[in-house]
């Protein structure tokens, strides 16, 4: 029987495939039957936050920063409450990272502010002496890709039913609706409104000017994203 298999490359390949597919069939596939359920208070990303998330991805922030707080006392002391599965329900892709060359960022919005990020991204050593993180000055002059962020929100809304334009109950019982307008122009207007609030707490004049002109520098979108990581 065994030798029969060894002499027939096609059936042999089928046998190999079944053996290696075994783990995936049993372990991975069934998990997808149960969709990720969001925890209370988890809401989809606004288009500006998505634009910022895409900046985070484009510059591979996840190469050095994790977004996964493990259930150990030293981690919860340092970063806050340990991470829950449902908090990632709208993360496509997930950004847990695999290496902490820098600290975890899953709840960075709880303890860092817009101006802290602004100074830090412009010149990390001025804020954290000894830091080995590079400065990301290009984010202050380059514009975020707003239309792609809008496209992404529309896609997750259409394909994966991400609950935009739907009231979502927060942990304190209040309810929040994340808007996703029907046209890109409306969405862009919303993003600019959001961006202005952030730009107002920043000091970089070029950034402020750009937002006045209707452009959103990458740094503003990125800070919008980092601020909601809580």
């Amino acid at each position, binding site marked *: 029987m065994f030798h029969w298999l060894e002499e027939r490359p096609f059936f042999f390949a089928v046998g190999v495939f079944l053996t290696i597919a075994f783990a995936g069939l049993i372990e991975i596939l069934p998990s997808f039957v149960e969709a990720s359920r969001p925890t209370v208070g988890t809401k989809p990303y606004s288009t500006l936050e998505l634009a910022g998330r895409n900046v985070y991805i484009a510059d591979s922030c996840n190469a050095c920063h994790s977004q996964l707080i493990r259930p150990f006392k030293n981690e919860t002391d340092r970063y806050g409450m340990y991470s829950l599965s449902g908090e990632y329900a709208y993360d496509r892709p*997930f950004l847990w990272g695999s290496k902490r060359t820098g600290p975890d960022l899953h709840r960075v919005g709880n303890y860092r502010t817009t101006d802290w990020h602004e100074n830090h991204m412009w010149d990390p050593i001025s804020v954290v002496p000894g830091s080995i993180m*590079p400065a990301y000055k290009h984010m202050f002059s380059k514009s975020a890709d707003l239309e792609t962020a809008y496209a992404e929100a529309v896609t997750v809304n259409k394909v994966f039913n991400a609950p935009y334009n739907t009231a979502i109950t927060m942990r304190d019982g209040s309810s929040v609706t994340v808007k996703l307008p029907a046209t890109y122009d409306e969405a862009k207007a919303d993003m600019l409104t959001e961006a202005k609030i952030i730009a107002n707490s920043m000091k970089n004049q070029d950034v402020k000017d750009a937002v006045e002109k209707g452009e959103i520098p990458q740094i503003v979108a990125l800070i919008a994203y980092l601020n909601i990581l809580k």
Partner: protein
Amino acid sequence: MGNNQHPLAYDYTVTRLFLYATILFGIIGMTIGVIIAFQLAFPELNYLFGEYGTFSRLRPIHTNGVAFGFTVSGIFATWYYVGQRVLKVSMAESPFLMVVGKLHFAVYILTILLAVVTLFAGITTSKEYAELEWPLDLLVVVFWVLWGVSIFGLIGIRRERTLYISIWYYIAAFLAVAMLFLFNNMEVPTALVSGHGSWYHSVSWYAGTNDALVQWWFGHNAVAFVFTTPIVAMIYYFLPKESGQTVYSYKLSLLSFWGLMFVYLWAGGHHLIYSTVPDWMQTMGSVFSIVLILPSWGSAINMLLTMKGEWNQLQSNPLIKFMVLGSTFYMLSTLEGPIQAIKSVNALAHFTDWIPGHVHDGTLGWVGFMIIAAIYHMTPRLFKRELYSKSLMETQFWLQTIGIVLYFSSMWIAGITQGMMWRATDEFGNLSYSFIDTVVVLHPYYTLRAVGGLLYLTGIFIWAYNIYKTISVGRKLEDKELNVNKSPMSAN
């Protein structure tokens, strides 16, 4: 039969193309690796090329460059060599397979070059080792299918009925990577759905914890089926051939094969210990990682025992040195990996530099050495020239070995130091160190690691030079001089 007829010979056209690619991507990928290693020690180096030169941009180019550039072209180069030889069939016998092989190379080169460009531009999905966006993923599928056609096509016209164990490992690598790649890269192009934004952008089909699960099922097994099975395929051919010794136990090689196939896929969960994936999957990942020692060591010990009674070759032949040390590093990293997968060890090791340290034991020591040896072995046969310099090979071997030792010893210390400092508390239970303290303390280890990397890279340049000189000025060999096991090499 007149004078214009020749006895059938193996046709290495495609092998030669992939051999050049292996050397090219080895240089690119490892040079970038050394640059980012120095950046961690000396952050000013981040500003050499504006936004395109930061650690975060370069890191994916390094990983993709060495995994899918250097290693995969090495795999393809050896496939087009070993495949013909153990099946006893020449590519020249099938014009169809010849076209497939050349097309395979063309699509592959195009894909990897585009990958380098897009990653520099920051076009990435962020999923480790699956960073390429969907248009490039489609190209990957094309060249992978072409490789499959080549494998099964060559098998279809073989003379030798029994498939040698190396062929088993190539088949497994082909099938598993195809499966893993397809599942992990399921993504929805946003422009197609919404009609807005950049055409190449996509979102992952999976969200959050599920995405992590699929990613590390892929990520871990990409290691298994790119860095392990095809490399085992190589050593099962090149070590016996170079030493003239048949595999110590062919039966053991078959058993290890099935053991590896069965166990490896379960081990992916060890990347997600203490994360939010279900507990039983974490435990499964941990347990199977430890079971994995058996089939891994089965292959490695089989290789070392193949040299039984012939250990004098270790002294006389640098290629045997590369391969034997490669097997030893394979044993080391397949023991280290399971140790790191034990939950309590993982709590300390995860997220620290011990992990890149572990990866590089395997990639520099095992994958790198094996591919270097394979290319050295093939070159005289591909170009009918004697290897240019044995002494350069010796120099390269020792430089690289020292480089690896510096690399992993510094990363062991760095990782454990960092892990201990993160969890250290004072007498009142407060954290003893702020995060930056745990970064500053690593400076000497980062420097040592970068120096280790630089030594290894120097070896890579020596290797490229030696191959170049062999091809251009090496002594020409008669066919009968090639009909030997030990690779012909010049003593100087």
